[in-house]
């Protein structure tokens, strides 16, 4: 672990204390996990604490862990992963926070901390259906007007449910159930760790 990452991990422990549920350093990147209850506080501290000072939120995305590793999971289906960047210290951090309820996932919005997160949270809401209380404009963003469902959930088929075409009889564009069969050319395989001696 380089000196820089060590300093960052040290500062994280120092300022966030036991609000950091886990801290992992892998592949030259630091990842912390926080509880949904502490999420907003932690994010605020990450930006404002001069020894951390993450001025920029680079990215925020949602992950649906339901089929991770091809095994059935219990609890903690949805997580939000954000990537922070500090311009002054030149370091990065990944923050992961699991939403409590699988049926109605919800996490506080961090729009008050970084304005850049606005569209990212809209995107997560649109694609995965995680709601962000405190976000003042939580509309769909990438999918079509009037779209139903959250397409990036693992139980949403890749071909979707409806398709659109022009109907010459009704002389308008109509939606109908998809006519294509979903097919998988290369199956998804998870090999054991020692497979092929790599």
């Amino acid at each position: 672990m380089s000196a820089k990452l060590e300093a960052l991990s040290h500062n994280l422990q120092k300022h966030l204390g036991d609000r950091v549920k886990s801290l992992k350093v892998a592949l030259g990147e630091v990842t912390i996990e926080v509880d949904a209850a502490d999420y907003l506080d932690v994010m605020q501290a990450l930006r404002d604490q001069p020894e951390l000072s993450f001025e920029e939120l680079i990215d925020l995305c949602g992950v649906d862990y339901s089929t991770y590793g091809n095994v059935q999971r219990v609890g903690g289906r949805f997580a939000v992963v954000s990537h922070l960047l500090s311009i002054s210290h030149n370091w990065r951090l990944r923050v992961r926070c699991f939403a409590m309820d699988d049926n109605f996932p919800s996490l506080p919005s961090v729009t008050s901390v970084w304005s850049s997160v606005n569209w990212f949270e809209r995107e997560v809401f649109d694609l995965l259906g995680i709601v962000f209380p405190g976000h003042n404009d939580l509309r769909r963003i990438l999918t079509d007007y009037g779209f139903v469902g959250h397409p990036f959930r693992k139980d949403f088929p890749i071909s979707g449910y409806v398709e659109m075409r022009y109907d010459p009889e009704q002389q308008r564009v109509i939606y109908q159930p998809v006519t294509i069969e979903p097919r998988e050319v290369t199956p998804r395989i998870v090999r054991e760790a020692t497979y092929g001696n790599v």
Partner: protein
Amino acid sequence: MPELRNFTLNFGPQHPAAHGVLRMVLELDGEVVMRADPHIGLLHRATEKLAENKTWIQSLPYMDRLDYVSMMCNEHAYCLAVEKLLQIEVPLRAQYIRVMFDEITRILNHLLWVGCHGLDVGAMTMVLYAFREREDLVDAYEAVSGARMHAAYYRPGGVYRDLPDRLPQYQESKWKSAAQIKPFNEARSGSLLDFLDDFVGRFPKLLDEYETLLTDNRIWKQRLVNVGIVSPERALQRGFSGPMLRGSGIAWDLRKKQPYEVYDRLDFDIPVGVSGDSYDRYLVRMEEMRQSNRIVRQCIDWLRQNPGPVMSDNHKVAPPDREAMKSNMEELIHHFKLCTEGIHVPEGEAYSAVEHPKGEFGIYLLSDGANKPYRLKIRAPGYVHLSAMDEMVRGHMLADVVTIIGSQDVVFGEIDR
């Protein structure tokens, strides 16, 4: 007294100045924009969802189609992320080739940008000149990969193949005689490096030509100066990166600050703006082209002197040599496994970012050890920049909206993904 109401105007999605399929709902008070609400997603193809259903190598060509103006830079971020997860080394020559093509891509992107931006705000000639130079660079793309746009040239482990020793020539036809095509073929008579060497030799002069047309042009300055000012504090709050951040006066460039590949061995400067308006961003991008030109020249010199492999010899990742495959059982098995099942990437997560011509382009990969990514997230710079549209256009005139869209350099392939 009649009741006065703000006027709502629908801008796009088929507006030529919208740079693709941007639909904006503008609330106007007279000619002053009070609020802008960009509606995006008209080009949404769910690239990230598709990638979850494709092997690691199959989703690479999708990267070209994100920002379809700077194709190879997108591939670069993806390859870096996969290589980080696999923890493999890329041969040095491949790193130099990647850097050279990243910078060629930057010039390609900025040329298209200056042409289209000029077109939007009334400098019609620019696009003709810019496309003249782009032609040579897309020829370089074609020479290495066979495609002028969607190259799929970078691969996890290196690049697809080494630089070619000869380029296709213009042929004599009933419209062009041998004497007429001779000057066209002069620069093409040698290798690709000779061709690029000729290009970097004449490009600074051409840039001077563009600058004579624009930089001190009264109309150009009237349209750009003091339009869309972003303060450094707001730029950080808004998550800006690349020329948008540097235009606001923050000297942040991943090539210098978090160097990847061989950028730490190369000599180049980072231009920084002062006032954070559209004109400063224009100046930053023009200077970036000069710096890219410098980098390409340094790469050409290095590549001439240092032949070597361009692809990792780890055959769990990179396919083996075609010849060897036909005579050797081991290689045949590797090839078969790679083409049917694909790479197996160890469990873990990685985020890799490159200094894309538009800003920080990042790929976040989450792998559960399968032959397909578990989750891929594309961090597109244009998405973040466009989200600041409302803040940037507030209080400006309707015509300035076009300038601001242009100066953000948005491309919908990457925004809508």
